[in-house]
């Protein structure tokens, strides 16, 4: 026995236990289920026997890119596996990219779960862009949890120098034939003056996948952040986004698409704080929910007293395509300045049966109609990605994910 479980539980105890259901960012979240997931993850990790050659043999030459459902031609590629990082393709010279061995992170108001995950985490990416540096190709970080038992936790840090520009994708590789661990990813960083970071997280590898990720970013003058979260079907998961717009002109666009089937549950929580004048934020989340899946969303925007002439909007839309599918939303605005634009909106609806009939009357099956309408529903999120490489990748992944999503949905229709 490694004593891991005992250490983790003791650690969690020292942080005050799991967040309480009254915590504003955990409202409505199925905490009891979450506790079970965590307990199982900890126990599995406790029971795991370390392998004598734990890292296997993977190299730049032998890595099988055909496992990926897209071409990596236009990407620089890094692989994270266990506690190792390996450059697979096109290492750029304009940046420092290595293991975040010191586990550097910046959290805004971390809760006990974040503290625990960080304590258990392996080093992830440390990316440092010098001032003026521009990454020509997006950086693709492949996250391989195949060597992990129970719980894979990685902590990444991104430091964007003034006027630097980069696009980074975190892509969770599917585990082949092994139990799916709980995956937690923490991405935090700082955007200095006029820097631009576009970052995406692609996840959802199986119906039993369990995932938690958290983004924390602190932005300086005129910096621009874009975050997109594409979930292709996560068994049980949660994504948190915390953005602090600290100086004039900083802007953030946080968006996501989730396709949920069967009994999947996904929770999205966003907290954006406007602390300086003329700051700008947009939230745009869309989810298509089928089976008896459940989507949760909590979006909070805080416009502080000094953040005059700030502009903020948040939008969450859920499309329910089955009678037992559910969506809950908790949008919140807290405005302390008097000269700002701030809007929020949330809608939950079903597909219009007349639209379905119209498409079916033109020879499309129910599944094809649902596919087309779901794609139309979520597509604007992808079209708003400013980085062309990332936009194309997301379009391609969505094109692949939707048929799978509809196929599962159709198979459930056929099951009495």
């Amino acid at each position, binding site marked *: 026995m490694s004593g891991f479980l005992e250490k983790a539980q003791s650690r969690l105890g020292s942080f005050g236990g799991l967040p309480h259901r009254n915590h504003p960012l955990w409202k409505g979240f199925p905490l009891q289920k979450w506790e079970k997931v965590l307990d199982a993850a900890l126990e599995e990790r406790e029971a795991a026997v370390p392998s004598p050659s734990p890292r296997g043999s993977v190299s730049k030459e032998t890595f099988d890119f055909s496992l990926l459902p897209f071409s990596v031609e236009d990407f620089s590629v890094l692989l994270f596996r266990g506690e190792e990082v390996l450059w697979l393709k096109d290492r750029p010279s304009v940046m420092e990219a290595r293991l975040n061995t010191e586990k550097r992170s910046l959290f805004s108001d971390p809760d006990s779960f974040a503290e625990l995950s960080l304590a258990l985490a392996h080093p992830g990416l440390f990316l440092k862009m010098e001032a003026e540096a521009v990454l020509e190709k997006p950086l693709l970080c492949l996250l391989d949890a195949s060597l992990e038992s129970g719980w894979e936790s990685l902590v990444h840090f991104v430091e964007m120098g003034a006027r630097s520009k980069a696009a980074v994708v975190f892509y969770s590789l599917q585990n082949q034939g092994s139990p799916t661990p709980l995956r937690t990813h923490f991405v935090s960083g700082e955007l200095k003056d006029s820097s631009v970071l576009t970052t995406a997280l692609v996840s959802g590898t199986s119906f039993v996948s369990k995932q938690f990720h958290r983004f924390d970013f602190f932005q300086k003058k005129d910096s621009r952040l874009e975050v997109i979260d594409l979930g292709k079907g996560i068994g049980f998961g949660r994504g948190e986004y915390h953005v602090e717009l600290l100086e004039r002109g900083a802007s953030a666009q946080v968006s996501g698409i989730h396709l949920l089937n069967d009994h999947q549950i996904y929770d999205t929580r966003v907290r954006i704080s406007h602390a300086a004048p003329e700051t700008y934020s947009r939230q745009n989340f869309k989810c298509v929910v089928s089976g008896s899946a459940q989507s949760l969303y909590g979006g909070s925007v805080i416009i502080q007293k000094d953040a005059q002439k700030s502009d903020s909007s948040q939008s969450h839309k859920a499309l329910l395509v089955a009678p037992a599918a559910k969506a809950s939303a908790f949008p919140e605005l807290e405005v302390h300045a008097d000269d700002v634009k701030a809007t929020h909106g949330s809608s939950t609806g079903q597909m219009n049966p007349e639209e379905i*009939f119209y498409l079916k*009357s033109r*020879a*499309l*099956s129910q599944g*094809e109609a649902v596919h*087309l309408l779901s794609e*139309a529903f979520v597509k604007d999120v992808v079209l708003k990605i400013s980085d062309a490489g990332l936009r194309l990748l997301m379009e391609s992944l969505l094109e692949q994910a939707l048929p799978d999503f509809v196929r599962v949905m159709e198979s459930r229709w056929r099951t009495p």
Partner: protein
Amino acid sequence: MLSIENLKAKVNDKEVLKGIDLKIKAGEVHAIMGPNGSGKSSLSKVLAGHPAYEVESGDVKFDVNFEMKSILDWEPEERAREGIFLAFQYPIEVPGVSNITFLRLAFNAICRHQGASEMNEEEFRKFVAKKSEIVKLNPDFLDRAVNEGFSGGEKKRNEILQMAVLNPRLAVLDETDSGLDIDSLRIVAEGVNRLRNKNNAIVLITHYQRLLDYIVPDFVHVLAGGKIVKSGDKTLAHKLEKEGYDWLLQ
């Protein structure tokens, strides 16, 4: 090609078709006229398989490979794949779905069913550009969302474009003339006439004689109270235009 036998149907527990009998052969154009609420649009929806309509009795048979088959248990897409097309009175807007994508998916679904070759995007764009000329629809419309932001006339022309592309054996045009100005009416009617041939049949549902000046029907039927109360040739439409429906309803 189509045989409707004592068809009775209801929607929201209200009986809207109370025993319709009608036979349509290939090459024929049938006009169905009648006062508001007589069941004209209900008939078109039942033929296309709208799920809100429940058939209480009777049958609808359609010629499939020289065999008359009941279609009442078929899904709307199965009917469409066999060649039944409904041009909607109020075409539905489908935001976010481009016309060209929608049309190509529909076209290829029918090709697949019929064992014909599907078209790739490039081939299809050329094919559909030619078809657009039939209804004088600017090809720019192909890249816009289906019917979104279209005027009433553009929506109706778009319906006829779909008909041209999908090449149905039976087209039911539900008040395709409503909301059209004179020029649009002529364009739509000319489009339908170009698509008319000896292998297909057309059912025109209309309130007005004026459409029938452009698309001359072989038969005119008057639907009232959910039943066909009078059938005749094109002269019946002229009589209705002059005398209204009262003489038939007394």
